[in-house]
């Protein structure tokens, strides 16, 4: 078998092997890579950054643990940004296996908020994040479409109590907060079709500013909504998250993950190129033989 053919008919297991190697290697290698931000994620960052303290941001943690790797960084980056800006947050977890994970995430977040930090040159004092004051975690209810509709009437319809069983009325921050009208924007971090529901049942009916954090695979599918103005900004996959971390000057999981991403992408690109070189060479030979 000639070289060109070898290049074209490599056993795919070589690809697999190299990917694994790269992945493991990055765990031990220590290097940083710069991140280039894009307007889609900047839109979200700027919107949230421009909100006055005390405003309420609605963050829907709409994903199962299996989308954890990609979407957790977004949730963390945004929520931390909000709290550093003294915004208040309403969380939901409208995905079946989500609530436990979401609860844990919120705990981790409020721990990390205790530390003093400097973001983009601004000094942020660490503070205690208080449930019912800084955030309300509504939890999970089945049939997300109906839940989203219900919350348009009043959060208390689908969620008479929060995730921990406290009646919403007895939570300080929920005083005078009834439905989306009292919310500055909705950020749906979603790993599935719940995003559609947020567009057609949520934004479509109640017209709040809607932002998406999506898994890489979904992103392309949701650009039309960006174009038609139903969605005001979105973060796609780990890169989107990394961009937000870059914007918020809060390097975390996403930027960490981007290192593997970069090498893995290079591996794949190299293989694609090899294949095409092989193709090219064999064409050339065919042409020669043709003469």
């Amino acid at each position, binding site marked *: 078998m000639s070289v060109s053919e070898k290049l074209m008919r490599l056993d795919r297991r070589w690809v697999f092997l190299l990917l694994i190697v790269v992945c493991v290697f990055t765990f031990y290698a220590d290097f940083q890579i710069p991140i280039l931000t894009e307007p889609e994620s900047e839109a979200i960052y700027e919107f949230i950054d421009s909100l006055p303290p005390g405003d309420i941001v609605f963050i829907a943690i709409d994903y199962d643990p299996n989308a954890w790797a990609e979407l957790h960084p977004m949730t963390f980056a945004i929520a931390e940004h909000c709290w550093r800006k003294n915004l208040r947050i309403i969380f939901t977890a409208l995905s079946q296996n989500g609530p436990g994970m979401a609860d844990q995430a919120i705990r981790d977040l409020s721990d990390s908020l205790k530390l003093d930090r400097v973001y983009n040159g601004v000094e942020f004092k660490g503070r205690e994040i208080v449930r019912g004051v800084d955030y309300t975690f509504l939890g999970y209810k089945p049939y997300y479409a109906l839940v989203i509709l219900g919350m348009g009437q009043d959060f208390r319809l689908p969620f008479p109590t929060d995730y921990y069983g406290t009646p919403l009325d007895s939570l300080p921050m929920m005083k005078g907060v009834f439905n989306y009208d009292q919310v500055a924007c909705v950020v749906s971090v979603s790993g599935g079709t719940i995003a559609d529901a947020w567009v057609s049942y949520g934004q479509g009916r109640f017209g709040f500013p809607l932002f998406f954090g999506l898994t890489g695979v979904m992103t*392309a599918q949701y650009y039309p909504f960006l174009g038609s103005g139903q969605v005001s900004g979105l973060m796609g996959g780990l890169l989107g998250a990394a961009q937000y971390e870059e914007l918020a000057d809060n390097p975390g999981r996403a930027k960490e993950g981007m290192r593997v991403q970069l090498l893995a992408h290079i591996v794949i690109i190299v293989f694609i190129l090899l294949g095409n070189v092989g193709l090219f060479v064999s064409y050339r030979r065919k042409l020669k033989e043709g003469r």
Partner: protein
Amino acid sequence: MKNKCLMAVVLLLVGFSGVAAEEEALAGDTLVTDPMLLFPAPVTNLEGRDSDNDHGHSVDLSWELSPDDGAGQRSVMKYDIFRWIPTLMDSADVIRSAIGVALTAREVDEVPGADWNDTLRFLRDVLDTLIVQFPAAHAAYPNDGEWRRVGMVPSGEGCFEHSGPKDRLSSDFLPDYCDFRFRVDAVTSDESIRTSSDVAGPIQCYGQWFNSGRKPVLVGVLVFGFLTILMVSRARKGADLYVRPISGIEAVDDAIGRATEMGRPILYVLGLGTAADVATIASFTILGRVAKRVAEYQTDLIVPTYDPIVMSVAQEVVKSSYLDAGRPEGYNEDTVHFVTQSQFAYVAAVNGIMLRQRPATNIYMGMFHAESLLLAETGVEAGSIQIAGTDQIAQLPFFIVACDYTLIGEELYAASAYLGREPVLLGSLKAQDYAKAAVVMLALLGLAASNFALPWFVNLFHVID
């Protein structure tokens, strides 16, 4: 036991009447008349009407701002909205809270007894009888009732939507068909310095039977429905309808033939959709056709399914195809079988089938998510011919890359018509094409409109929900 609960309720009644009294102190209209103070001018033209396009339980109020709104000394800071509420509604509230208590009591009660339920039933009956009397109580204005603040808006705003939930058990339930009366106070920075407007009302709220905001959709429904029916009837009359060849579908028959020659089975994957998803419905039709051919060629067919309902439908489909092919004896209940309703477990199982039973042809038609590439790549490894079709845009790239033929989006639906060659289906396909032509036309018109300042045309497409 029962008496115990009723006791509790009674106690509650007492307790709550006290609370209600306190509320009055806060809410009653408090006009401090001190000549030294300058009172702001009241708001004028206070009007209220039932909110449009809703299920009732909501009233829109509007008024002209007080002349003192945002003006110097007597500046108005906010507007308080008051509604005249008959005392009857307080007692309703008491009952509601009693119900709440009874519910929690039943929760914590270690031996759940029927009597809690009896109490609840009793309380609910009381509540219902009260609610029935609401209209009468409102009609009795201004007797036994009082003004309560139901909302406020900052100065500068001249409208307010007063709405409540439709659930009669919730405390801020707003009944339909009651003569509400409203009043708006212009309030200065000093809460006690306020001027009330004239009373507006009676105003009733009620649900509508048509949401006028959705006219565009209605038009769409009618036009499209008409178009389809027209085309179908024309097709029935036997107008010949051309359908362009769809390569993926052409390939299906050859693939079945190939499988027969190789004496290897055919794998048909219906995807992750439910029996009601359009993609799955289209896939059923294709499956029917494939099964018929398979029955004729006497090849094996494997249909692992993800959703039990899809499974039962698919069994119907395959069975009747074998009947049509005249080989009912060739049909085996386990041709179509359920695997599991967990995405990746399903994939694992199907991959197993591919590598162990080595089907000559894999057909993926329907709704697919992340698993698309897992299936298709394994299929490549197993050296099968692969034909895919899905309307999940996100998954199309993977099928296109890994499969020999792919039906892109609408082609999947078209395929079912193209295969069946039934005039009615072809007719509706034709209707779709006309609709698409209409889309292009409308888009062009819309462009013209939006470029040459004809907003009314653009607004035709504005759907209010």
